[in-house]
């Protein structure tokens, strides 16, 4: 298992900072009814590091992200964010920790009754009440420009493409200047050009903001481009964790199968 300090710099990817992990997942188990989804997961992500979590559909990758942000609770094990254990916290206590995190949902999950700009302004409106309307509008404009959107500020989510929805979702995730970015299938359902654009955007944000990121994906090319480290999940467990080269060298049958497709 690679530890944060040992991770070499990949092309286009910034090297992670050393020190204590900002996200630590310790022996996490999670079941839904009789279906065991996660079966003793251990992962650590350092500041400035990008971890890509790979695996087949239904292996619990998205569930892992939901556990990290506290949308679901693990059956056993601990999830620590910035050293704080998430178990047993009230919604308001969780809220304090969630402000450190930005979450891009698989289908963007934009508020369909608000425009693109209002979606981005939404977290600021609730958490940065001292901010004036004009300051907020400037910040929204800046965030949308940062994710490559200039024009369509007043369009409703249903009126923009899937790729643009992801960008708006990303801008919303960045609104509170998080230390940790959680991305659930950021390139799923996008054409190859849009996928690469999103990858480049994530790389750019890493360089500029130096956040820790956890990216759930089954897009191997995307994971190779944006991540310092990859973790491959199968049957609720981490099969292998390391650099892309480590995965390529692995003799594990499942890893070989996964890389082949």
């Amino acid at each position, binding site marked *: 298992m690679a530890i944060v300090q040992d991770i070499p710099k990949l092309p286009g990817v910034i090297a992670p900072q050393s020190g204590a992990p900002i996200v630590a997942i310790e022996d996490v188990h999670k079941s839904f009814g009789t279906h065991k989804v996660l079966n003793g997961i251990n992962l650590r992500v350092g500041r400035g590091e990008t971890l890509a979590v790979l695996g087949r559909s239904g292996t619990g990758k998205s569930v892992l992200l*939901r556990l990290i*942000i*506290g*949308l679901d609770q693990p059956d056993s094990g601990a999830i620590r964010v910035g050293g704080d254990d998430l178990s047993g916290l009230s*919604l*308001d206590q*969780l*809220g*304090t920790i*969630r*402000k450190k*995190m930005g*979450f891009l*949902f*698989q*289908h963007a*999950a*934009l*508020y*369909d009754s608000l425009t693109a700009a209002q979606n981005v302004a*939404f*977290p600021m409106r*609730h*958490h940065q*009440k001292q901010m004036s309307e004009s300051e907020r509008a400037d910040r929204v404009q800046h965030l949308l420009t940062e994710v490559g959107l200039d024009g369509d500020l007043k369009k409703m989510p249903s009126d923009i493409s899937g790729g643009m929805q992801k960008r708006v979702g990303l801008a*919303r995730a960045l*609104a*509170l200047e998080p230390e940790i970015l959680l991305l659930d299938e950021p390139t799923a359902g996008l054409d190859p050009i849009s996928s690469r654009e999103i990858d480049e955007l994530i790389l750019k944000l890493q360089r500029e903001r130096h956040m820790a990121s956890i990216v759930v994906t089954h897009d191997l090319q995307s994971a190779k481009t944006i991540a310092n480290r990859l973790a491959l999940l199968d049957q609720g467990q981490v099969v292998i964790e390391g650099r892309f080269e480590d995965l390529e060298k692995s003799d594990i049958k499942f890893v070989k199968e996964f890389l082949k497709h």
Partner: protein
Amino acid sequence: MSTLGRSAPLAIRPRFADRQIRGFSQLVNSASRVIVGFFEWFGSLGIFFWRVVRAAVTPPFEWRELVRQLDEVGSKSLPLVALAGGAVGIVISLEARYSLSRFGAKSMFPATLVYSVIQVMGPIITGLVVSGRVGAGIGAELASMKVTEQIDAIEASAINPYRLLAATRILACILMLPLLTLAADACGLLTGWFAQALVEPLSFQQFIQRGFQGATFNAFVPPTFKTAVYGLIIGLIACFQGMRTRGGAEGVGRAATNSVVLASLFLILADVVLVKFILVVFP
């Protein structure tokens, strides 16, 4: 035949008995599932209500969303409630005139109309109309937000969805139901008087004077403000059904239907209890 007659019961009896036992155990399983589901539903509703109350009484308060919901529940329900109240006024007027004439008690008409509308029909009609319009709206809106992960996105943005979505809607229902009831009562009295005045000339002033003669606080205020409880039932059940939805478009449809059906049912049951409560506490 004789061979068959002797051997058949031996061969068939065990299979028949097996089927009987299987059928009975299936029946017991189904019944236990229904009973467990029933208690599970009430337990979940109780937990949901507790979370909403806790979120509602702790800052930050979502004033902006509350005002939006007051408009959504109150102003936008007003035409429908007024129309329903007006229709009920006419119906009571027609029925009451006919019945009272038969017993030679026509002079009781204004009081009969006033008491019928304000104590009985106004509150329940307002509750049922709002349950249909607002209950279905809230149930479908929140269910749609749930299945498209918008509620998760709110939570992930460190915003308490019980405070932002549920508490504001429930509070708006509680505050607006008594006001809408007053509007329904006013329309019912107006149309009831109008229907009577078309047949027998009676000034509105005389009608009101005779209708409210001897009326006390206890006769009218508690029945009007009991609708705040209806508001709580409608808002709570619609938010609960909406926020626990699973399963795409079908789930959204189910949430909307269940919101209306359950809210209407509990509203009628609550009316039974509240009428007795008011009679005892405000004699």
